């Protein structure tokens, strides 16, 4: 009997989805496949999430599995820990990444440490979803982009897709991952474009970047909402005859160092783009990776185009805060003309 394992039929049909729809689809796929999966958070139930990322799930799976919680981020994460060590796979939504701070202690001292503290006896296979970033004229604090606060926290993986295909595949991979994953969703590109996404289940491997454009003059590295900004700069550079190798990092911890090393060893130049503050930003880790792997290949100092070392401002100034294609292009020119 065991020999005749049912062949899981995987659909090859695809469907046009925005990134947020692909996230919903990823959640739905896993809710269907694995009854240990639960979705919980503020307004994720009847309301379908403030961005509609959980739209329709409450109707389909009921309030036992799509759980509206009190307004209590430490409670959400703390209770998810209790559920995760006790057999469930919670997918907790933090309404905005800028509101994750009340749960920081739970994530830092428990989510990321339980496996190590119990030598693997207990683990916390949970996903924390959080919309992040500026550019949608949201009120204050809603726009923070603080991935670096979590990549400096051993015991949790961090992913950040920039496309519908990757979003669904990474969501499924995150839910299946035996360890906790912080799943960052750029609000600015939630609905910025549509893409063909396979129906049913597939995964995108956590820890692997993606090459979006091949070029030999300079390596551009970005993730989330900065990917389209960077691609636009790459197009403009092209008109000046500069060919960019563009990497969408997709996973922020652990970073795909090989895709970076391979690229900069070819180009000898790098521009890193992120919307988080420069000091303490992930860009510095990438500079170090290049230092460690490719010192002798580098023809010019690495440039970082980032959010400034100032709190993300109220929205009247947020366009000034965010990296633009123009700023990226300037950096490209700088490394090329060094």
């Amino acid at each position, binding site marked *: 009997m065991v020999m005749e394992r049912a062949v899981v039929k995987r659909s090859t049909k695809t469907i046009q989805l925005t990134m947020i729809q692909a996230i919903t689809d990823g959640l739905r796929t896993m809710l269907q496949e694995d009854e240990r999966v639960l979705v919980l958070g*503020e*307004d994720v*139930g*009847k*309301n*379908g999430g*403030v961005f509609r990322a959980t739209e329709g799930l409450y109707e389909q799976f009921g309030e036992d599995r799509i759980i*509206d*919680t*009190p*307004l*209590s*981020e*430490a*409670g959400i994460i703390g209770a998810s820990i209790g559920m995760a060590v006790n057999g469930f796979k919670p997918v907790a939504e933090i309404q905005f990444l*800028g*509101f994750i*701070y*009340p749960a920081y202690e739970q994530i830092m001292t428990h989510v990321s440490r339980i496996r190590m503290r119990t030598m693997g006896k207990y683990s916390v296979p949970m996903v924390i979803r959080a919309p992040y970033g500026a550019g949608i*004229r*949201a*009120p*204050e*604090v*809603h726009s923070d982009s603080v991935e670096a606060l979590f990549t400096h926290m051993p015991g949790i993986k961090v992913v950040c897709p920039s496309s519908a295909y990757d979003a669904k595949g990474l969501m499924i991979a995150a839910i299946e991952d035996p360890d906790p994953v912080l799943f960052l969703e750029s609000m600015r590109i939630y609905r910025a474009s549509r893409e063909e996404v396979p129906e049913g289940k597939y995964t995108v491997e956590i820890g692997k970047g993606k090459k979006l454009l091949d070029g030999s003059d300079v390596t551009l590295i970005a993730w989330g909402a900065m990917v389209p900004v960077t691609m636009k700069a790459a197009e403009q550079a092209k008109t000046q005859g500069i060919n960019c190798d563009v990497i969408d990092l997709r996973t922020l911890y652990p970073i795909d160092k090989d895709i970076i090393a391979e690229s900069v060893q070819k180009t000898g130049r790098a521009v890193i783009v992120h919307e988080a503050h*420069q*000091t303490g930003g992930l860009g510095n880790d990438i500079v170090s990776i290049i230092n460690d792997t490719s010192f002798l290949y580098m023809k010019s100092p690495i440039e970082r185009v980032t959010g*400034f*070392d*100032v*709190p993300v*401002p*109220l*929205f*009247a*100034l*947020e366009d*000034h*805060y965010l990296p633009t294609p*123009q*700023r990226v292009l*300037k950096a490209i020119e700088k490394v090329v003309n060094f």
Partner: protein
Amino acid sequence: MLADFPILQVVDENGLLLHEQYKEKITEELVKSFYYHIVRIRTFDRKAVSLQRQGRLGTYAPFEGQEASQVGSALALDKDDWIFPTYRDHGATLTFGAGMMRTLLYWNGRVEGCVPDDGQKIFPPAVPIATQIPHAAGAAMAEKRKGTKNAAIAYFGDGATSEGDFHEGLNFASVFQAPAVFFNQNNGFAISVPVEKQMNSRTIAQKALAYNMPGVRIDGNDVFAVYFNTLEALNRGRNGGGPTLIEAVTYRYGAHTTADDPFKYRDQSKSETIRNTRDPLLRIERYMKNNGFWDENWVHKITEEISNEVDQAVKDMENYPKANVNDLFDHVFERPTWTIAKQKEEYLRLSGREA
């Protein structure tokens, strides 16, 4: 110690005074001031919603339905008290004395909207829920240390009571017997989550028991009840009696913000029912009529005045100088660190501006 908290009213839905003890305190002037401020902030609120719809304002958090809570409590404050509002309490701050134009600026993403006038103790609106509650405790502790008679009031919603900061703030204030008033507007919802899912507690007022703090549950649509109970709580604080938790039971008629669709999660006809029976303005109107304070001319006059004031504020907001990119860099520290100075300089150079 009793743990039951009936909803206190001073004036009922029909505009009838329920407790004679307030009779003398309710002067025509006071009632008219209630009426005036409720009309004023309601006019502002509706204007803001309509501006948002026209794309002339960013996402906006309306408070219509909650005006009695905000006006009654704000009028109970002294000029030298502190006020710690949320994003939905500009009805209270406007009543307390915040600039109308600045309030509009805030909703247009302008940091200038957070800045109080000189001498005004108005904290910028708390966006992360419940975080302002310990601030109010601290500001009140500071007033006590200075030996003043000033108090601090923190506004927050029913959802906010689930956050740790609510608990820590109330505990601090009670341990240090700070002159703080924790003014809860229980409008029944935290975005889509009804208060019954927010807590198992039947009232918010009873949470005061955890801190041996007086807790009061009042009809938040009864501006009289709000005013007198807030006044009492403030006075207790000023006189060394420590903090108070007030639960004002009210209702938000409209969406959580202009980005929200309440039809997704609740029956909006309830808003209409309440509007027709328990609306804060209706109640004062009835009271005024019952007591011979009603004066069509005066109502007409203030309505026009207010409308002009709001229009002028909108004009001033729209004519306000454009956001200045320097403000992105110049206020993080008293003197910019080199990282900020360098980033500013490079950015201004790139965008063809002068520092």
